[in-house]
């Protein structure tokens, strides 16, 4: 075992595949000498050269579009947009091109591309640099969406994402980049659609991903003091979704709380909640609860931002309301 930060994990996943396959390349905003806005690609241009680690103009449509075109011809590009918020500028290329080309063309094309999108709030970046937009991507057939919560998963999910022949949206949480974590010496690819049970429990299932996994674990500790034994699931892969792990857990605990940092209205967690209702409604002995951000843009001021974003206290309250 060794210790790596989340950001280093993301980089290691890319680096392993770049060493293995000359068709894997990175391009995006300031990914070269600057090392990426959050330092994730630091050192890669020195190691692999400017051909494989390329700074682009600030031109999101061109970044995603070039990924689509080059993937169609046989590269395995990893485009990075500096913030998930900027995906709006390249959204046509993601939604109308990347996600649909294979289908529209009758399955005769592969688009192996991994789009890296730093997400989430908590860094005083205000409304246009703090969003959690996973529901936009999971809503679009043709995209796969993953969201690692730790260094080990960041590596394993990246290895799988780069080898996948479909467009993969790889979401990263900004507040986790510097977080250290234990990592196996040789990390294996983590198959998509496999959730990770972070803590087993018998009284309630808390489903989360990304940064909220830590909030959920904190909440579980607080709940334990009150004699509530919570199970915490880290989805890791939002689509494909590990329905089986969720249903199994609900059958055991009969209570569910879903947690994400998204504005609660129209959130991805709503879709998972609906799935639970459809698949195992009669296993639930209490309402399915969701915890998310408030339905407002993310504010700048620290006091406002921490009020808008969810935390462990909100999760504890949601869980307790079920008992």
């Amino acid at each position, binding site marked *: 075992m060794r210790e790596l930060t989340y950001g280093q994990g993301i980089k290691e996943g890319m680096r392993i595949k770049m060493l293995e396959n000359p068709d894997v*390349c990175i391009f995006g905003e300031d990914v070269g000498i600057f090392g990426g806005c959050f330092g994730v690609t630091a050192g890669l241009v020195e190691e692999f050269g400017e*051909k494989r680690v390329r700074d*682009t*103009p600030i*031109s999101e*449509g*061109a970044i*995603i*579009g*070039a*990924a*689509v*075109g*080059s*993937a*169609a*011809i*046989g*590269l395995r*590009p990893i485009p990075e947009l500096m913030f998930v918020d900027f995906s709006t500028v390249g959204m*046509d*290329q993601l939604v*109308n*091109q990347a996600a649909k*080309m*294979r*289908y*529209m*063309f*009758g*399955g*005769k*094309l*592969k688009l192996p591309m991994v789009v890296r999108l730093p997400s989430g709030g908590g860094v005083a970046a205000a409304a246009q640099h703090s969003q959690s937009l996973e529901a936009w991507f999971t809503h679009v*057939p*043709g995209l*796969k969406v993953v969201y690692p919560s730790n260094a080990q998963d960041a590596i394993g999910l990246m290895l799988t994402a780069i080898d*996948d*022949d*479909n467009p993969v949206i790889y979401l990263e949480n900004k507040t986790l980049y510097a977080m250290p974590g234990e990592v196996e010496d040789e990390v294996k690819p983590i198959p998509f659609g496999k959730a990770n049970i972070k803590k087993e429990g018998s009284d309630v299932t808390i489903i989360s991903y990304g940064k909220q996994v830590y909030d959920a674990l904190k909440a579980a500790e607080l709940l334990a003091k009150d004699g509530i034994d919570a199970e915490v699931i880290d989805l890791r892969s939002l689509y*494909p979704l590990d329905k089986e792990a969720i249903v199994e857990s609900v059958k055991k605990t009969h209570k569910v709380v879903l947690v994400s940092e998204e504005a609660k209205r129209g959130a991805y967690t709503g879709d998972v909640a609906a799935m639970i209702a459809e698949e195992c409604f009669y296993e639930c002995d209490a309402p399915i609860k969701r915890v998310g951000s408030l339905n407002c843009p993310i504010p700048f001021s620290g006091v406002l931002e921490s009020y808008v974003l969810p935390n462990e206290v909100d999760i504890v309250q949601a869980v307790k309301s079920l008992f």
Partner: protein
Amino acid sequence: MKLSNENIIEMYTKMIKIRKFENRAMNLFAEGQIGGFVHLYIGEEAVATGVCSSLRPDDCITSTHRGHGHIIAKGGDLKYMMAELFGKETGYCKGKGGSMHIADATKGILGANGIVGAGQNIACGAGLAFQYKGTDQVCACFFGDASTNQSTFHEGLNLASTWKLPVVFVCENNGYGISVSQAKHQNITDISQRAVAYNIPGITVDGNDVFAVYEAVNEAVARARKGQGPTLIECKTYRWRGHFEGDPTVYRPPGELEQWKKKDPIPRVEKYMLENNVMTQAEVDKLNGTIDALVEEAVDFALASKMPDVSSAVEDVYTDIVEEGRSR
């Protein structure tokens, strides 16, 4: 530049193939045999033909909503195209794409596209892949006059010029963005002027003169193959039909279409061939008969083909996941 008789006959063949395919599609639409949005290329045949005749089989194109001509010129098979217009399982896209999304990656056709301005950045990606792999392939990117007002046009030209990507940007200026004339949608007459902003060559040619298009594109392709970057070529042309079939074209001034019909690109080539002994009238007639038969064969193939099995609707979304179907 000297074109061989064989080259000229090949170009003429492509042009009449496009014209006859489109005329047949027009009739099939009018008869209600095919549906959806059908954007016909009649009148613009010299552009696709001149461009694709400058390309090798391993070069790529990106196309537009008005894509039939590009696809035929790049070697698309009329049978599979026609079957796709009918939504049949034997169509290029197994009935999932229709007129606006025909693609054939094996022939370098990266797809017709329903989004105005989507192709420029995809073409950059294809060019990037060629440059990255060190091949001398190029990508020709077709788009209309109105798409040059989209941000993607500027993003694409900026990226391609900065990275010297092997892309030839071909603007088919047919004078209209759907119903809005060029004078009402941009403050320039020659779109090739926009190349100045990206420090690349910008050329305007008569888009109804297949030889002029060929010559300009040939030079641009040669530059691209040598690593000298992209070129913007504006081909001034005109679509004879409306934006799509069913468009009553109320926005056209009287007499405009008739003026352009006098500049029909096909008789121009015929005239050249007869005057220069490339083909005799009898040979021209025979070739026309052969292509008529080919188009009819395509229609017969489409009519005889089966509709897709409904279960296929949830296939091909991903390479490895089949989505859930219905129980009915």
